[in-house]
């Protein structure tokens, strides 16, 4: 397959702060690639380096096989970008801003095809183009950037937390758009801290924490890492004994609680049915939990050893050992 984005050992320091500490990221053509991480993990910094807006301190980065700092303009001709924190010009209307950005990308805004696409997106996102920039809320500024990015076709879409500030209805509209991009064969790098969004949209996910990629793989591979939390009403610990796949079983405030690897969940359900449990609640882990659970043990300074490809399985094995002991 064709590699669109590739970084190796990418580092970036601001004074004494290590924003990136060796990022290895690979995105292949046609992928919708989730770029997950908590706030401040280095997602936006990585994206800025990929766009040539910031200069890397060390390591390698390439987009379309080009060097992002030197060949920024060539790269930008093929890229659509939605920044994480969208600012718009206070005295330009939303419609003007969208047209301006489209023209900067070389689109002819008089063309019927552009007009139609713009109209379609404005309807989909319920966007009023007449208001001045200063009157837009955060969500509406986000819509300006999204419509501008989507209205002109690109080979690569870099979307930095595109749904922050959007209401749930608009999130659905956004997902439809990403599915459309996938069908056209475009490549998407979708940065987010919302796991459910990434699960719905992405073929492949890279997880960044404290300036380095800690997990990368397909969703199926990563599901191995996620554990679902199951809880139901119970008073004694005996009920947990019959469930082989359960980890971390506890009884608190009249509820039995345990976690189970996502793959093992189907096997657990018949057991619960036989016991006729009441008040059953099954919760997929939030990203926050995933981080606390999987990486809470090494929150200290990173040692610099260990690479992306082998850190996943070893951590998973360690976790299994800990849970069984």
């Amino acid at each position, binding site marked *: 397959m064709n590699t669109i984005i590739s970084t190796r050992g990418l580092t970036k320091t601001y004074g004494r702060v290590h924003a990136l500490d060796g990022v290895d990221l690979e995105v292949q053509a046609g992928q919708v690639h989730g770029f997950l991480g908590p706030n401040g993990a280095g997602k936006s910094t990585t994206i800025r380096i990929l766009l040539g807006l910031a200069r890397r301190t060390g390591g390698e980065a390439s987009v379309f096989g080009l060097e992002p700092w030197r060949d920024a303009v060539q790269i930008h001709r093929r890229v659509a970008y939605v920044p994480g924190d969208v*600012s718009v010009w206070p005295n330009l*209307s939303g419609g003007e801003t969208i047209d301006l950005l489209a023209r900067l990308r070389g689109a002819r805004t008089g063309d019927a095809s552009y007009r139609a696409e713009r109209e379609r997106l404005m309807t989909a996102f319920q966007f009023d183009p007449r208001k*001045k920039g200063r009157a837009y809320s955060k969500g509406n500024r986000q819509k300006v950037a999204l419509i501008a990015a989507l209205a002109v076709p690109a080979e690569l879409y870099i979307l930095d937390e595109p749904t922050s500030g959007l209401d749930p209805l608009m999130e659905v509209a956004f997902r439809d758009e990403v599915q459309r991009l996938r069908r056209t064969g475009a490549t998407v790098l979708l940065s987010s801290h919302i796991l459910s969004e990434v699960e719905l949209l992405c073929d492949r996910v890279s997880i960044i924490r404290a300036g380095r990629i800690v997990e990368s793989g397909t969703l199926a591979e990563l599901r191995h890492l996620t554990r679902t939390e199951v809880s139901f009403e119970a008073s004694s610990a005996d009920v947990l004994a019959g469930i082989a796949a359960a980890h971390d079983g506890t009884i608190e405030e009249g509820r039995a609680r345990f976690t189970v690897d996502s793959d093992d969940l189907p096997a657990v359900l018949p057991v619960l049915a036989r016991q006729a449990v009441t008040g059953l609640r099954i919760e997929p882990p939030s990203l926050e939990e995933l981080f606390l659970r999987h990486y809470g043990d090494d929150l200290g300074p990173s040692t610099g050893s260990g690479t992306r490809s082998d850190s996943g399985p070893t951590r998973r094995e360690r976790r299994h050992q800990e849970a069984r002991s």
Partner: protein
Amino acid sequence: MIVALLRRRLRRDWLQLTLWILATVLMAYAGYAGVTQSYATHQDRVEVLSAVMANPVIMMFRGLPSGASEGQFLSFEILPWLTLLAALMSTFLAVRHTRGDEEAGRTELLAATPAGRALPTVATIIHGVAANVILGILVALALIGSSLPSAGSWLTGAVSAATGIAFFGVGLVAAQLMRTSRGANSLTVWILVAAFLVNGMGNVAGIPSDDLTRIASSGLVWASPFGWAAQARPYDTDDPWPVVLALVVGLVLAAGSVALQWMRDIGEGFIPARPGRIFARPALSGPHAMVWRLTNGAIIGWAVGGALTGILATRLSGLAGQIAGQNPAVEQILDKIGKAGDLQETVVTVFFTMMGILAACAAVQVLARARQEEAHGTAEIVLAQPVGRVRWLRDYLLVATFAIAIIVAAGMLAAFAGLAGDEDAPALAKVVTVVGLGQGLAACVFTVATALVFVLLPRGTIAIAWALVMLATVFGLFGPLFGLPQWTTRFSPFAVTPVVMNGIADLRGTWWLVLIVAVGAAASLVLMRRRQLHPAG
């Protein structure tokens, strides 16, 4: 609670206010030194004042003559400038802490606490009044320290503070009316300039006394706070009532702004927002068009100023020509500034130096916009499109140069129009052309200087660029009046441009300026290749 609000204001402002106040106090101090050095004897001062009576042009940029004592003459020389500095400090302060905060969303944050909607404004009023009081006291002490009579010195301090407070009220009300701090600042600056000119015209239209050292102003001056300040006549009649008038007006306006605030929602203004365009105009199609769109309003404002300066230059040089030879004292003043031969040539040169300063201000404003775009985050959106860093900065340089060209053209065309019917027209047209183009070149120096600061020290762009213009103005235009040594004026680009002396053009530092502009522009663009985005603050 109000203490916390005041602390926050002080912490944000202390450096800025210290500089404003220090500049005003220094002006008072240096003004005294200038007067005693340049016009040491009573006879010198009487001569200058009688010259002024004959040529009212000078009164547009000087104060109201009240007599020829040292103190009276000092008032004539610098009182308008002292009050102008206090007024500018106050209007910017008023808008910064009201509409500026509101626009940034900080007011909403505060209004949701028990501080409510009114308390932050009340804190701003206390803050602004206190700043003016301190300024007034320090100005008075500086003058007393120069061994001037204490009654007049205290009054000079008081009128400076009171004029500041009056314009502080204007700023507060403008901040309530307009929806953006940019709009509120433009409104107050236009009011301020108009008030300054109204005062000047009121004095020009006044009646000179028999000994030609004093003018009884026309009633027009009472329409302008600068007029009130002048009518206090420090070191002369020492009338305190104009001070009280200015204070009352300032405080009534401040109270009015609090009342207006009660009547409106946070974030809204009284001048309704118009809906924008659904589609962008075809012209808005590149980074340069974007820069032009963001700055054209301001550039047109500067061009109007340039045109006014141009027409004054030639209309008034004609006037000056009529009295040339009659009075050597006028020539002496103008020679000090222009160092040129013929009196008419000198008047044109002085006015076109002012036009050069206007053009430099416009250029700095355009380049400063690049930094504002970067800090605001909109530069990131543009630079993520197929727009190179170098091209992005180059477009700001181009628009700034274009702005200078517009202002110089406006000034020169207005000057040519003003020459119609003048018998010396061809000779003066040559002066206008040479000096006008030369000042345009001087303004370009500030374009490239701002660009270099932007590339190398992004966070200091706005402060350093305006400080450079300010220093160049002081050295180039006021330096000779304040008795600064000759060599210091050479640091000001405005003072080394070509001039015409007795019909002969002298290129002076033209090639140096060309070299500086070329090297500076090239260096900033080359350095921009290595520069990454420096987003916030």
